[in-house]
């Protein structure tokens, strides 16, 4: 009993030839070789439709980005006077929303930096250690470079979001937040 590839082994109950059978018998064959068979045309159709879906998705993402970009202009907000913070001192403030804790550190007379206070690993609050030149997260021994906010030790992989600062007439203003992916 040798059979050609694609030939049905199972006989339909009414015994009539395959061509006279209803369409669903071809779609749901009982023989597993036919059940597992995928026509080249069906495969290509599937591939094209999936690629089309991915392409459409990319355009959708692009469109969403274009819509969102101009909306995010953060307010200018006064934080503290420069004289209130000693060199090597730090200040915790919220910007732009009340829940967004930020930490400001005065590195020397001229330079000030501010970062998000949440560690990028599991959101524990980071502690500035200006003498060591780092922001330290006690939860899992993570460290960030104080000058740039980039991770230098421990589990965190991403840099702390940086708050843009401006000093005008002895007052420190926050002007925006830089989200950074690495």
């Amino acid at each position, binding site marked *: *009993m*040798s*059979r050609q590839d694609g030939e049905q*082994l*199972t*006989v*339909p*109950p009414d015994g009539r030839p395959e061509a006279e059978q209803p369409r669903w018998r071809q779609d*749901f064959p*009982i*023989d*597993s*070789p036919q*059940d597992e068979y995928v026509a080249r045309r069906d495969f290509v159709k599937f591939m094209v439709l999936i690629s089309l879906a991915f392409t459409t998705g990319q355009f959708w993402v692009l469109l969403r980005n274009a819509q969102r970009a101009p909306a995010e202009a953060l307010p200018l907000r006064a934080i503290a006077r420069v004289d209130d913070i000693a060199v090597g001192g730090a200040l915790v403030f919220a910007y732009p929303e009340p829940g967004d804790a930020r930490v400001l550190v005065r590195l020397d007379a001229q330079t000030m930096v501010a970062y998000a206070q949440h560690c990028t690993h599991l959101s524990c609050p980071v502690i500035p250690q200006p003498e060591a030149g780092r922001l330290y997260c006690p939860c899992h021994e993570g460290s960030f470079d104080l000058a740039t906010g980039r991770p230098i030790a421990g589990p965190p992989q991403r840099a702390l979001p940086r708050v843009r600062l401006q000093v005008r007439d002895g007052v420190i203003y926050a002007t925006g937040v830089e989200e950074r992916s690495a």
Partner: protein
Amino acid sequence: MPVPAQMEFFIDPSRCIGCQACVQACTECDTHKGAAMIQLDYIDRGSSPQTVPVVCMHCDSPTCAEVCPADAIKRSGDGVVQTARKPRCIACNNCVLACPFGVPKMHTQMNLMMKCDMCYDRTSVGQKPMCASVCPSQALFYGRREEIERSRPRSRPITRFQFGSQVITTKVNVMVPRHQLIDLVDVTSAQHERAAGQEMQDDPLLAGMHLGEGVA
């Protein structure tokens, strides 16, 4: 690897001695370990100890697969009807109720229909099914057609059965007396006849034989 086409399964119910060795062996099969897919049915328990081994007959038009709403029961290219596919089987019991031979078994713990698959892990590598390898009276025989024709001169295999108006052709053979013109086994008619061992043989498959033209 498919089951070789020249290797066939033969059942001779008149040889069955009811020892249950096949049932025990069946639980050892790796495709359904721990559960027996073969059973011994008593013909007329009140008057006879005669049993019939019931394995899947692997029909050419499998009723179980025809009634499956989930498209789960498939027949491999060598004609063996396999256990329901686990990702598809919805444990609806349709196949259990529909099979005229009463072969599929519902395993509610696994939500899966399992059935005799002729020990596919063994037969597909050239070994005998578990039941046929242990049967002491060879009521279950697995081998070549020439072999059984030579060793059993008084019997011959047939593969057609009738249940009411449904005629079924199977892959598995049942042995019937060689010199009677038996075309098919009418199983449902046999159920209504007395098989007490007086005028009939105590074998429903033989008792209800549909005799063809020109009975000798």
